[in-house]
């Protein structure tokens, strides 16, 4: 006999969203921010970022997204300097690659389509860590961030309609399609991670002799329905805008000030380029972590979480990563914290603030190692207080990363730590002697 499962229905009560639609139509050109480094004034390679609670935080009835950094971008039709829109409150995400904006925000630009390798318009499907997804066509745009311009850059335009989304992307429409401001909790995603494209070689037609068919969920064409998986050349895949800049294109420096406990708003900078300008030189005080499968090792409370590969040199999981798109510090529950109840089950609810430390270690045996001290507080209290006090920065918000895997060092990791991300395939030549990207340093 089939057991009836009790489904707990709880009201989270964390506020409701208002409004939809995208960014404001402000003149193109975004003022450069003054980062915590105190350079002041507008620099072409400095993008202002703000942990400000998100696009609705200051609206009546709006909601606060804690521990999310936002920035603006100007998107133009390729080759145009007038047919443009500026979109605010893009989530700055070092865990993904590529710009993703809502259809409603760019439809007036009539951006040209980008094709899959079979000559039909390419559609992209991407997933978040929690299983939700984005779907929509790949289109070509010129993207300006601060004073840097990425010309002819494939971006993802998130569809306003759920029509024709293939099952392999949407799980029969039963996982969440975050195609509105209220579901995405941003006006788009600015993916500025380690990789130059969102899929890479696995989706490139050069893999066709090796792979029987294109991987899914990834790229599709929909010239006949249902939409079917297709290969797309790396050049046509949704691209990390940083690699398309003419200079300052080898990586980024993500700078946010330290936060003690909680804070209403913090502002900082995303600086483009490493070792290419006077404001982005690589400090000797940094510890550099080379990577295995884009991850490094973390030692925590007697356990070592290392990335692994099999005998065929294929990634087999494990290890840790740094990801500004994750809104807390997520790690295995070795301290045996209580899990928060109901809808907060992703988070830890210790009785009181608990101090911890972990050691990140280079996984390739360079000997690089650095200790990170951090604290975790009761997430239920933190979210409640954040709503009443309007705090967007919660430095002690922690939760579960599935056991057996390492740390998801989310946005709180960045508070007071300047993180240098060197992009795969690019070159960091100043100072000399640094290893080839990808790597992280801080």
């Amino acid at each position, binding site marked *: 006999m089939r057991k009836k*499962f009790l489904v707990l229905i709880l009201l989270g009560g964390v506020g409701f969203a208002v409004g939809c639609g995208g960014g404001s139509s402000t003149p193109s050109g975004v003022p450069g921010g003054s980062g915590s480094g105190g350079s002041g004034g507008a620099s072409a390679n400095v993008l202002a970022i703000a942990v400000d609670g998100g696009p609705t935080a200051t609206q009546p009835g709006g909601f606060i997204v804690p521990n999310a950094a936002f920035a603006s971008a100007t998107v133009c039709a390729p080759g145009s300097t007038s047919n443009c829109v500026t979109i605010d409150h893009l989530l700055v995400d070092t865990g993904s690659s590529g710009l993703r904006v809502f259809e409603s925000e760019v439809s007036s630009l009539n951006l040209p389509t980008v094709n899959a390798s079979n000559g039909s318009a390419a559609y992209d499907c991407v997933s978040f860590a929690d299983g939700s997804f984005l779907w929509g066509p790949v289109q070509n745009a010129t993207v300006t961030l601060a004073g840097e311009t990425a010309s002819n850059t494939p971006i993802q335009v998130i569809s306003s309609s759920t029509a024709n989304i293939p099952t392999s992307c949407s799980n029969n429409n039963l996982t969440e399609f975050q195609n509105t401001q209220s579901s995405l909790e941003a006006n788009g995603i600015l993916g500025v991670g380690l990789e130059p494209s969102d899929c890479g070689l696995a989706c490139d037609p050069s893999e066709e002799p090796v792979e029987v068919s294109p991987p899914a969920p990834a790229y599709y064409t929909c010239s006949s329905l249902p939409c079917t998986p297709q290969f797309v050349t790396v050049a046509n895949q949704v691209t990390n805008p940083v690699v398309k800049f003419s200079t300052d294109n080898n990586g980024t420096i993500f700078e946010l000030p330290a936060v003690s406990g909680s804070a209403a708003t913090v502002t900082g900078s995303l600086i483009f380029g490493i070792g290419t300008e006077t404001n982005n030189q690589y400090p000797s005080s940094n510890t550099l972590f080379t990577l295995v499968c884009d991850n490094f090792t973390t030692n925590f409370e007697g356990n070592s979480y290392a990335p692994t590969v099999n005998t065929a040199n294929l990634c087999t999981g494990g290890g840790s990563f740094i990801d500004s798109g994750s809104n807390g510090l997520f790690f295995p529950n070795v301290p045996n914290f209580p899990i928060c109840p109901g809808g907060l089950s992703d988070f830890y609810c210790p009785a009181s603030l608990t101090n911890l430390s972990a050691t990140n270690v280079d996984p390739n045996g360079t000997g690089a190692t650095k200790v990170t001290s951090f604290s975790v507080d009761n997430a239920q209290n933190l979210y409640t207080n954040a709503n009443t006090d309007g705090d967007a920065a919660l430095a002690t918000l922690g939760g579960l990363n599935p056991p057996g895997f390492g740390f998801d060092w989310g946005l709180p990791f960045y508070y007071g730590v300047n993180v240098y991300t060197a992009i795969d395939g690019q070159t960091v030549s100043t100072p000399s002697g640094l290893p080839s990207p990808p790597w992280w340093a801080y």
Partner: protein
Amino acid sequence: MKTLLENSLPFTSWLIVGIGWLGLSSPALAALGGDVTSVAADQAHMKASIEVKQSEGYEVHALQAPGGTVVSEYVSPSGRVFAVAWHGPFFPELHQILGSYFQQYSAALQAEKKPHGHRPLNLEQPGLVVQTGGHMRAYFGRAYIPEMLPPGLKVEEIK
């Protein structure tokens, strides 16, 4: 306590290695909670190669899909899939590998208001735990039926 449909099929041998597409559309029974023949259905749907490993008290059938995502299905001695785990560049099709448990997973996500922000998922329900995490190009996760875990198999080993 039995929580699933009874399996009256005998435990048959299953060493299948290869790549092939049998042209199956959605199977009646798949993966988590299903019997071992559902593993073959998942393999066909994923167009995957398969490797089987024996352990104390269970077997692991690892399906590798084109593009590199590996789905491991943990099978009890009575031929029941009690856990699935995955890692790789692409999110697996949960409606396929969670089988009859997908409805519970989906309903639980919609029933409980989630706090704002993106992050890994930890869903703990009576009879079902689903944990997912990672980021673009590197996803991982597991789903399991807690009461069916064999003694000595720790959750962190399900991957």
